[in-house]
Structures are given as C-alpha cells and as structure tokens.
C-alpha cells in the first residue's frame, strides 16, 4: 500500500478502494536554485563581514569571521536540503495534499471544491531556473497551500488541472 504525503509521523492513508496516487516532489532544479541562493548570500556576507572585521581588528579577526560565515552556510545547506526534500504534493481524486516541513511536519489537505483561485508566481531567480510557485487560495486566509519550485510546464499543467477541478467540484461559498 502506498502512503500519501511522505514521511513518518505525518501520513495519510489512502481511501479504501481508490487507487493511491504517488506523491510528487518539486523539481530537482529547486535544490540547485536554493544552493545558488545560499552560496550567493554566504559570499556576500563573508565579503562584507570579512572586510569590516579586517578594517576594525585586523586579519586574524577577518579569517575567523569568514570561517563562521562558511560554517553557517554549510549548516544552511543541510537544513535547506532537508526542507526541499520534505516538500511533496499529491493530487488525489477530490483533494490536493501538500506536505512540508522537517522539524514541524505540516500537511494540508485542500479539497478542490473549496479552492477559490490559483496563483502562479515566478520571481526573477525562479525564472532564471525556469521554475514557478503555485499557490492555492481558499476562503480562509490562513489555509493557503503553496508548492514552490515546480518546472514551468508542470506548474502550467497543475494550474489548469486545479482550475478545471475547482470548476467541476465547486462546493459552498
């Protein structure tokens, strides 16, 4: 039997009798993009803090500062990699499941019928990696489900499918 929504501790068993769709993950390019983002931020931070330390307290202080920044960047690599890996989404018959988070696992189930509208955004960095973020809006402002780092074609497919399903299964409000 296939578990929906990934990891232990927060799983959803498929409905009996229904074929369980496999959870999907964001594009591998998302991890590449995040790597570049961390590396870029770390480089800027190391350069800035290192120069400041060198001017204020000399070369040894600068070396220590840069080392601290590099260690922080490595830690960030580890955290972000886990976070990217943990992000999964499953298109079930009546609802979309988005599971995310490492320390705090979070799993949102959005019935297609409750979806109000779909939003696809692509920031400058995302566009450089040909990625897009799909966001589902429900009537409750707090319960938005977001899937980052989808390949452009997958984002368009998901957007059209969600819009069509929302239309077909519309309920309430």
């Amino acid at each position: 039997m296939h578990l929906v929504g990934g990891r232990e501790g927060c799983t959803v068993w498929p409905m009996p009798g229904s074929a369980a769709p496999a959870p999907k993950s964001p594009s591998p390019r998302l991890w590449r993009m995040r790597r570049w983002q961390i590396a870029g931020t770390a480089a800027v931070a190391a350069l800035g803090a290192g120069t400041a330390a060198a001017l204020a307290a000399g070369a040894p202080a600068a070396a220590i500062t840069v080392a601290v920044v590099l260690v922080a960047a490595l830690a960030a690599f580890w955290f972000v990699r886990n976070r990217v890996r943990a992000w999964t989404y499953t298109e079930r018959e009546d609802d979309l499941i988005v599971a995310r988070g490492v320390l705090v696992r979070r799993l949102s189930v959005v019935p297609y019928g409750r979806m109000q509208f779909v939003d696809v955004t692509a920031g400058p960095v995302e566009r450089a990696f040909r990625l897009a973020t799909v966001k589902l809006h429900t009537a409750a402002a707090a319960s938005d489900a977001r899937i980052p780092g989808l390949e452009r074609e997958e984002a368009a497919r998901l957007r059209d499918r969600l819009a069509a399903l929302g239309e077909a299964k519309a309920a309430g409000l």
Partner: protein
Amino acid sequence: MTGQPGGWHRLHPLSPLVRSGRAAVGVLAIVGISASGQFGHDGSHLLDWALAAAVVIGAVVNWLVTRWKLDGATLRIETGLLRRDSRQLPVARIQAVDVVRPFLARALGLAELRVRLAGSSHADGRLAYLPEQAALDLRARLLAAHHGLDPATPEPGEQILASVPTGRLVGSVLASGASLLIALLVAELVVILVAPAVLAASGSTFLIFLLTLVPMVWRRLATEYGFTLAQSPDGIRIRRGLLGTVAETIPLRRVQAVRMVEPVLWRPLGWCRLEIDVAGSPGRDHADGSGRLRKTLLPVGHREPAWRLMLLVMAADPPPLVRPPGQARGGRPR
C-alpha cells in the same frame, strides 16, 4: 484595450497616467515649488525630473507587462516584469464585481473593474483601467458566466428598489455623532469670537478637531451621494459617488449577512441604515469604501422600506423574534 494573439487583452493605454495620477501630481507639485525658486533652490531640477520620469516609466512598464483574458469560465490576469504573476479567477467563485471610476478616470472615460473572490486581497482581480464600455461589457460577461449562462448573454434589465435623496443623506450626516462634535466646535468658535482670550487656550485643539472631522463628513457625503439600489436577475446593484463613482454588483446568494442599524439620533426620524457582509479578505481599505467587507445596502432610509429590502435580500421570511425564556432572567447575562 488592445487585442493580442490568443485572446489576450491589454489595459487601456491611458491607465498608467491614471494609476500614477496622484503620484504624478505630487511630483509636479514638487517640481513646481522648486522651479518657482522660493526655497533658494538654485541648482538644476535634474533630480525632480528623474523622479517624475521614474514614476512614469514604472507605470508604463506595469502597463506593458499586464494582460488579461476571459477564458471560458476563468478570468486570467498576468502581470509583473521581474516577478511574473499569473492568476486564475474562476468565474463561478465571484463574490462581487465592482466598476470603480475615480474622478480622473471618469474624466477620461475609463473605469476599473474589480472582481472580488473569497480569500482574495485588494490587489487580486483588479483590472485598472478599461474603457468604460469595455468594463461594463466584461462585467456583463462575467456575471452571465457566473450564473451559468452563455457569456454573450446581454446584461439583464434592472428594477430600481431604492434611492437616497441628497437632502436625506445630508440630514443623516448632520444627525450623526461627528456633526454633533462639529456643532460643538462651532459653538466654541462663537465663544472665541466673543472672548478672543480663549483662543490662545483652545485654538490648536479646535483646529485639529476640525481637520479630522471635516474630511470624515466629506467622505461620507462623497461616497454615498446619489445612492441607488437596484435589483436585476444577476444580483443587486449599488451605484453611488459624487466625484468618483462606484457601481457594485453582488449576486444575491453571495450576501453573507444583513444588518439593520438605528443610531439614537435617527430614531425620532424613523431612519435606519442597512449593511450587508460579503466574503473576502479586508486588505487595504479603499478611500471610496469599495474594498470593505461590509457594504452599505442603504445609507439611510425609513424603517418600512428598509425592512422590505431586508426580506428581499434574505429571500425568506425571518422567523419571529423570541425573547429568552423567563427563567433566564435571574441568570448571568453572557
């Protein structure tokens, strides 16, 4: 509205001008002040012009990258230069459609269409600006599609339910708390005129009160001037506004609640106010009040017609009101 391949449309070419209208006027004012040389500004006005140019270029770019399309039962809006944003608004989910015409847009024959969905914020579903007729046509198509009809169905006729004469609106504003405070201030003014010594003591507070209250009263008058409520098969229509006008259409089943309010000062006159709640997230409040969750169904009216309106909006007879049982009298009111 420029036609593009694939059924996409642009906004009206004048919209950057109207959208940056306020900012442009501000920049022009700054330029004018520094150009008049009163403040000893003897350098070039390069910075001022650069600022003005930046505002204009930003608005034009925003216009260039924005396009919309009514695709069957979905309204698509794409916008953003660096951060591309593509929005799918299912027509069946519409909570209300507003046609907003600020003063400048009205003078140029333009109108903004605002599609409200539950869970949307102020920026979602805005098309600013379209030519007036195109906005009305698109509204008719959206509402027809919302009711499951062919989008080409012409806009159905409407029947006017209530309108608020200007005299009554002014009277209602005069009989509100704010105007009482103004009366108090006028009395103070009289006292000041009689005894100028008081001015030194209370002049500044007087001014501050006046500066806050007068715009409040003006805003109510300007937004609710010429208020007309009409009913048509695609929903209730509200039209109002003095300088800028707002036309709201709310499908009847999208009304979440109706409220009748009777302020103390209005009760001797038998007046009341009707408000309805519409789903959506409050977002930033617009100056014309069209961004609010709570919409005014009737700014001021007599009780009898107001009650009938309320029954009409609820589309059912309300159950008789019941008091709490007698045994509850000794209980703690919660």
